[in-house]
């Protein structure tokens, strides 16, 4: 199934793009997508735990199961204000 990835801030800099459609198996959890990103980008190797996770513009548990068409964003440490 297809999931829309959004990359912000340091993750966009590391991954080199701000968004991408990815094809993942049915039943994939958000945390598993994070592990895929870690395999592909060694700057993330030290980050075994995923950062905060947002699905469709809401914070979600990292073990949330993704659905077709979801918008998934990992939220690096926020620093607003």
């Amino acid at each position, binding site marked *: 199934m297809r999931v829309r990835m*959004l990359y*912000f*801030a*340091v993750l966009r*800099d590391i991954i080199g793009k701000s968004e991408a459609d990815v094809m993942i198996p049915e039943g994939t959890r958000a945390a598993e997508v994070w592990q895929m990103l870690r395999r592909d980008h060694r*700057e993330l190797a*030290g980050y075994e735990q995923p950062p905060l996770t*947002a699905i469709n*513009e*809401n*914070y979600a548990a990292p073990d949330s199961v993704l659905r077709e068409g979801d918008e998934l*964003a990992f*939220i*690096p*440490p*926020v*620093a*607003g*204000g």
Partner: protein
Amino acid sequence: MSYLTDAPIDTAALIRRVMRPSDGAYVLFDGVVRDHHEGHAVESILYEAYRPMAEKEIDKIVTNTANQYPDVAIAVVHRLGNLRVGESSIAIVCASPHRAEAFAACRVLIDRIKETVPIWKKERGPDGEEWVGWQK
């Protein structure tokens, strides 16, 4: 109503927007780019947001705080983009018939906004640039 802006923050307009004749005071919190952070010099900060989610998260915080302090009128604006030292990144106005609630609500708002809203900052200075909070 958007909580995010790419333009300089007009605090006077924000104050006019919230003040009611029954308000005896307002408290304005204004966050400003400062010239240092953890021992190194800062020249500017680039603010970036996951915009639609940041709008929603700020709105949740404003709604919760308004419920907690029902007498307080609230306005919040966060600026995005590259800001130089001395420029305002966030302004929060809390107007109230009595001052205690205005102070309390303003403090709660800035604390919560800093905790959960998906906004990031990249500090730029003579030592290079760095996303704040990310351990390399």
